[in-house]
């Protein structure tokens, strides 16, 4: 009974919906990154690492310049750099894409941990360096529920949804998009028609760097304003699951990200619900929730969605 009341309390609380959007945003960015890369046939499990770098770099440059947007800009640049490494190993050198991705995750964890002390003077986490202010939409502020749920949000949340549209448009409405889909499905066919397979794949992977680093930047300067070691906490992998669940389609990935964001927000709200009075020591159990949901979803949906045929296969002329 008490659980039931707690559920009603959560679902009628506008803050819960804002939390859902906030939790979904990094996933939307990163899962779009996954789509961009895999639609051209390159598996990119380095999303987790690129996000972590994005989170760190944006904090560093926000701290240096005092402007969080400049922080985001540098996060994107570094994200492209990381993605370029992955592209270089897996496209140019036809390396094992999963192993290369693993290396980049480790690299990001190493580099961010390594630079904490020299830059911020202590390991663990940085000071609050400032964040991107939320913007109010006057029209929505009139209604209390709308105001508290979607009336005042980080502009990066809007960017995430805009990115969904942009990704969809690029992939389905442009010449480049047609070539991306062709290269992911049958690179040899595209090659014989004079499509530069490597260039198209580089584009896909570099875009995944842009997207994933935006997702990471949102976690730090978009949401909390500082950086903690390993703060991405597996979101890069949840984003991969969202991409799979979304059938390698930007719009599908967005819905899946919202589902995972919902489950994360739900787990958070449940454990802090005043009606349930969850002991602080029990909270880790609630943190398992999004991962269990992801696991079930992956197990349930794989095979029912279809990856690009050449996904993960290096192309050799």
């Amino acid at each position, binding site marked *: 009974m008490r659980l039931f009341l707690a559920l009603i309390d959560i679902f009628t609380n506008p803050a819960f919906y804002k939390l859902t959007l906030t939790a979904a945003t990094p996933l939307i960015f990163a899962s779009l990154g996954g789509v961009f890369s895999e639609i051209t046939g390159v598996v990119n499990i380095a999303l987790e690492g690129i996000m972590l770098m994005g989170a760190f770099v944006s904090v560093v440059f926000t701290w240096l310049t005092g402007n969080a947007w400049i922080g985001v800009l540098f996060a994107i640049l570094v994200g492209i750099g990381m993605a370029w490494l992955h592209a270089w190993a897996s496209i140019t050198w036809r390396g094992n894409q999963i192993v290369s991705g693993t290396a980049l995750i480790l690299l990001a964890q190493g580099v961010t941990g390594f630079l904490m002390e020299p830059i911020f003077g202590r390991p663990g986490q940085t000071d609050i360096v400032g964040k991107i202010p939320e913007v109010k939409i006057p029209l929505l502020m009139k209604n209390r529920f709308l105001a508290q749920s979607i009336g005042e949000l980080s502009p990066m949340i809007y960017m995430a949804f805009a990115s969904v549209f942009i990704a969809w448009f690029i992939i389905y*409405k*442009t*010449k*480049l*998009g*047609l*070539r991306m*889909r*062709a290269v992911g*499905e*049958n690179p*040899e*066919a*595209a*090659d*014989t*028609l*004079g*499509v530069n397979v490597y260039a198209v794949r580089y584009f896909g992977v570099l875009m995944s760097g842009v997207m994933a680093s935006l997702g990471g930047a949102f976690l730090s300067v978009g949401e909390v304003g500082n950086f903690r070691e390993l703060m991405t906490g597996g979101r890069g992998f949840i984003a991969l699951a969202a991409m799979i669940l979304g059938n390698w389609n930007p719009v599908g990935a967005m819905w899946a990200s919202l589902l995972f964001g919902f489950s994360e927000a739900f787990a958070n709200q449940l454990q802090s619900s005043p009606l349930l009075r969850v002991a602080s020591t029990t909270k880790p159990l609630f943190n398992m929730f999004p991962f269990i949901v992801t696991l079930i979803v992956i197990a349930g949906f794989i095979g029912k969605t279809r990856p690009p*045929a050449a996904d993960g296969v290096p192309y050799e*002329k």
Partner: protein
Amino acid sequence: MEKAVEMIQIVKRFPQVVANDHVDLTVLKGEIHAIVGENGAGKTTLMNQLYGLLKPDSGEIRIFGKKVNFKGPRDAILMGIGMVHQHFMLVNNLTVAENVVLGSEAGIGPLFDLKSARKKVSELSKRYGLHVDVDAKIEDLPVGMQQRVEILKVLYRGAEILILDEPTAVLTPQETEELFETMFRLRENGKTIIFISHKLNEVMRVSDRITVMRQGKVTGVLNKSETDPRQIARLMVGRDVVFTVEKTPARPNGVVLKVENLHVKDYRNLEAVKGVSFEVRAGEIYAIAGVAGNGQTELVEALTGLRKPVSGRVYFLGKDITHATPRELREMGMGHIPEDRHKYGLILQFPAYYNVILGRHHRPPFANGEFLCHSKILSFAENLLSRFDVRPNNVRMLGANFSGGNQQKLVIAREIGLEPKLMVVSQPTRGLDVGATEFVHKTLIQLRDSGVAILLVSMELDEVLSLADRIAVMYNGQIMGEVEPNAVSIEEIGLMMAGHRLEEIRGRVA
């Protein structure tokens, strides 16, 4: 007459082999020029250089008299060259229109204009009589249609010179005839066609001139009107070829394999085999002919335990094996020579001595309890390799390092070494040269004569006709009719391959 293509003293070396050894080729404008030769003669390598996919090590290429130096297919396309590859180069999840325009899309700036692409493609298909639904996805089209898309792709790019690499390999006789009509229509429109083939009757039917290749060299340039198939064959093979396989009539015994109303689904969960029934007797070769992709693969997979049938029954020596596993079937004496030896037949990273025990690796004499007996495995492998003349005779060499013919010998040796009562054979000579093909055919006949029941699935009509004692033709997951090779005409088989039932055909004739 104007020369469309001149390739002069082309040399192309690969690590193991000289694929093109000072090759000269001249193709005149507006002719259909055939290039014939065995597998591995260097035809495809030569064409890949003409199309910019490979760079010659030395030599010169001229197109309409102009010396060219292609950096990639894009350059070749710009010079008006188009290629229809042996394996279709189509993107399965895109539509016909999208496939045709890919790489030279219409549209303003970066935008892709699907509407104008559809319009252009349907205009083109009307002009050359290549009818196809522009909005269909490739994966939903039959093979003959897919080939039209390939030709449309080439024409869309304004090709004047069309290279067709073994275009009839996957077609029914009727579809082949339609293709030839298309080729003649293109020639009337002033296009130049290079037709690569090893089927001499087709070459004689369509070409104006013929260049013959053998082992990377040109062995002759002939006018069709002044030559005959025997001369071409001699130039191709370097000796007189026996066109038929020698064999005595079969002396079949009891039924070994009995299939009753079998239904099987493919990987996309669509029904691929739709109620097939037949029997194979000991001491006969029962062949299933048909165009690739009509359910043969799924049928073989279901019979050999690699795919679960949806319904129906299969009996092997009277025992119900409908749901038996590959291991149980092997224990019972079913051998299987799979159609794709790289995918199913061999573990390329394993040495030969491991490959020849695959399937029996878990039991004596090769395993004693949980442990492998390496000494017995090695001596068995050495024996087998000598018996089947696998070269090099090195049991420690990795599967990947053997040539195609010797890889196939490894597979055949392993499966015959099993001393099977039934041998399921799928596409046994695909990609093999003449010598290896002859060896395979002879081995199969010997096996038959020793009393083994053989189920042969082949897309090569010649192979079916020369080996089989009885032939069934499969179309769209069903058997169109069962005939004996000396009591049927090519036309009848062709009609069955195109989906006409035997009763229907003979009924109409009568």
